[in-house]
């Protein structure tokens, strides 16, 4: 009696398990679709000198021109707020890293966005002396790869991104603390790099951007500057 009761559940288990072996995906189906062209107006083209408007249900002005229609605007607004436009590292002292932070606040309606960043050149003095972009402790970080930077004998300029509040995400690599990246260098023809992104509607995300500069004793004492540009680009 006991054996029969024990065997029954085991048989049920054995029957249940093989199904997982079938896990697969059905893909690769490809169909060419032909249909009517994407025509929005059947009227003959006419050159319009000035627009006319009508009020939409939402009270917005919708231009009326015979030759085109303004598509549905699915992502009405996007906004950014940058509390400061100068990041002051003061007078640099060799092997004493200087860290500065500021916030970047972004809101988007309906869809997401990405934040790209680049520098016009590495920190540079009027005499063309440079504070190079950091390569981090292991020499591996770049404008796309983040790496740890804690050693005070590692020199250069870098940044990291953290989420203070909201549903946005910083670019991959910033998850561990003390990881930094270089800015994409426009003077070296590097394309702007993604700093943060969001794939959804977001009331507000507050990003904290942290910058770090550390110089060697051989670094010439001077005023070093550069310009960092952020671009907030909505998704389509």
């Amino acid at each position: 009696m006991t054996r029969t009761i024990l065997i029954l559940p085991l048989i049920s288990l054995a029957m249940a398990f093989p199904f997982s072996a079938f896990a697969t995906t059905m893909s690769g189906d490809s169909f060419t679709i032909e249909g009517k062209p994407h025509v929005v107006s059947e009227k003959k083209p006419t050159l319009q000198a000035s627009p006319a408007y009508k009020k939409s249900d939402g009270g917005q002005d919708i231009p009326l021109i015979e030759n085109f229609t303004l598509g549905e605007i699915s992502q009405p607004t996007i906004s950014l707020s940058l509390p400061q436009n100068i990041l002051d590292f003061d007078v640099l002292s060799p092997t004493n890293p200087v860290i500065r932070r500021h916030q970047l606040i972004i809101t988007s309606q309906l869809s997401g966005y990405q934040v790209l960043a680049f520098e016009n050149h590495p920190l540079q003095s009027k005499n063309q002396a440079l504070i190079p972009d950091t390569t981090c402790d292991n020499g591996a970080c770049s404008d796309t790869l983040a790496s740890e930077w804690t050693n005070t004998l590692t020199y250069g300029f870098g940044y990291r991104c953290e989420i203070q509040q909201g549903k946005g995400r910083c670019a991959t690599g910033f998850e561990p603390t003390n990881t930094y990246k270089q800015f994409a260098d426009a003077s070296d023809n590097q394309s702007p790099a993604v700093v943060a992104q969001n794939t959804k509607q977001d009331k507000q995300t507050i990003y904290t951007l942290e910058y770090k500069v550390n110089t060697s004793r051989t670094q010439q004492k001077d005023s070093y500057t550069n310009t960092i540009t952020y671009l907030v680009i909505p998704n389509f």
Partner: protein
Amino acid sequence: MKPIFCLIIVLLFLSFAKSASAEGNALVLSPSVIEINSQSPSEIYTPFSLENKSSSPIELTISYRPFKAADSEDGKVSLLDEPYNDSFIYLKKHFDVLNEEKTPVTSLRIGPQQKETFQLRMRIPEGIDAQDSYFSLIFLPKQAEISEEAQVDKLTYSQIKAGIVMNVLLSITDDTKKPQATLQQFSTPFYQEKAPVPFTVRIHNSGIHRITPKGVILIKNMFGQTVGRINLDQANILSNSTRAITNTQVAKEASSAAGLHVPTALWEENLLLGWYTASLSLAMSEDGPIINREIYFFAFPITWIIGLIVVLIAVSIIIIRVRKRLRQI
């Protein structure tokens, strides 16, 4: 005593002043994406507004950059370096931003806490071929002025600029070009243990115009009853690009959190058991065509079943032992 106090206050003030930075900027752009269908020749005026939310005036430069869909297939933009192609260079000559006086401008000045409306004017010349043009209008604050003192004091600093971007999806259509699109993928793992069930729907637009397909996935159980419905988002698929279509913001979030290569549509259901049929109906445009595809999956909540079996075994053993003891008594 008083001078010492004054000196301390002044020193405090000075020390604070040194760490204070110039005020940044706060901008609101509406709309962030404009979709236009036009014909050649035509002249298009599209209003947009920019609001300066900061307490100081802002001057913005305007630049145009073509873009394509990013490889992530989720609607992200990939900016292209100019010259992108001759057609865009030609078209760009016919684009300008007009201020309220209808005068073309290359930079905008907006007062503090002011909202101003501008117009993007696009003149589509006669005889231009049917095509799509996707470009971004980049509004970038002008460089802040730094005092000479900073350089004398050997200060090191970075200037920070944050620009905002408006995407324009312009389609110049004619009556001859038909939309062409392929369903690259409609799939789900064959075996599902629990909800949500992810569906990957990837559409490739090989036509010359962007499309916004409308789709729905109906899920039937083994008895033929419709037990689920997923309304897919209507998303723009640019010419010569592939996009993965999702159903909700939650789906996008879950897909990205799971590290999936492409976003998926999700079916939320409490209990899954047995064979299911998922039918996708997709209309590539308002005038069709419609394509239908079916896939199958099997759902079996194995963790629950194992738990149930373990409980049954435990209960059976207890009953047997209790019976044995009762017999012995």
